[in-house]
């Protein structure tokens, strides 16, 4: 078993509110799901691309994905993929407030073969997860403003130009609901 992202990740209160406007899960649960997807993609891609070469070297292969992946990675001809999170996916949030909320406390657990697959597929898996999280926050802060600005325009009220102030002001409204509250009001199952 290996631990990833033990250094944690801090976000601002406005970042958290923007995430809560869209997510049913916590930021850590979102990151865990993202990491699960990264593990799945790494293992499946390595298997798909290298399994025939691996088979050509063995009379029979183990019926265990962890042994197969480790066997493939040990082949001398195997080359790491060195994937990074690419534009246009990568975006930095506009952030004025201090980053005081730790969201990745304790890091994430992965099996040894999953860690090996991640490191063979991504140039830096921890940096990639960090980039996905920061991109997610950036996208949701922009979406929050895109979705809520028309409300203030209709009411003829002043609109804060900076993302953090806009989000903090808007979430103080009495009629404000985050996603969980909106879904509950609509009777959506969790």
């Amino acid at each position, binding site marked *: 078993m290996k631990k990833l992202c033990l250094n944690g990740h801090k976000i601002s209160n406005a970042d958290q509110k923007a995430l809560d406007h869209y997510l049913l899960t916590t930021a850590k649960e979102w990151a865990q799901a993202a990491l699960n997807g990264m593990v799945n993609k790494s293992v499946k891609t390595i298997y*798909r691309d290298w399994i025939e070469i691996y088979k050509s070297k063995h009379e029979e292969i183990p019926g265990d994905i962890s042994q197969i992946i480790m066997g493939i990675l040990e082949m001398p001809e195997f080359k790491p993929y060195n994937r990074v999170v690419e534009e246009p996916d990568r975006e930095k949030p506009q952030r004025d407030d201090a980053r005081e909320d730790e969201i990745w406390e304790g890091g994430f657990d992965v099996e040894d073969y999953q860690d090996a697959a991640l490191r063979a597929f991504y140039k830096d898996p921890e940096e990639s997860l960090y980039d996905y999280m920061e991109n*997610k926050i950036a996208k949701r802060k922009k979406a929050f403003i895109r979705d809520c600005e028309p409300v203030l325009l209709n009411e003829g009220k002043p609109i804060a130009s900076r993302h953090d102030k806009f989000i903090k002001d808007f979430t103080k409204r009495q009629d404000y609901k985050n996603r969980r509250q909106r879904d509950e009001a609509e009777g*959506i199952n*969790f």
Partner: protein
Amino acid sequence: MATNNNLNTYIVPTSTNEVTMPSQVAFFARLATTDSNVTGDGTAFTFGSGNALTEIYDQNSDFNTNGTFTAPVTGRYDLVVSNQIEDTGAATTYLIEIITSNRTYIVANVGPQGIAYSAGADITLVHSAVLADMDAADTATVQITVSGTGKTVDIRASTVGTFFQGTLIC
């Protein structure tokens, strides 16, 4: 001439002018073994959380057979679900939701008039789709909730009737 980056051939025109994109996001997974007695009493069942799904294809390795699709890039994804329930008992509602990180789409909400009850022919199929906005590393799952009876309703395995598929559109 094919179009390549340093890793893959991603656009492939043929000599007769068809174009394929072998690395474009596209997945199709079906339920090969019935999930028995998983809902009916209001229990929300996540497609793939019982018996693992069987992939027909997963071009870019973004789908997990536990039923979770993870978006590799930010974009609009066409997500399609087809689901059959059977042993409906006295069920009164049949709800299908596609749950993405950003929002929940209610893609079917069937009342008692739409649910088949006849003994030996109590199979109800619903097919729905949504064009979902997803950010990179967001997930999508399908949730099925049947209410009004006991926990006796099955999600019926089928070669073509119970599946989850998706494609990156733009």
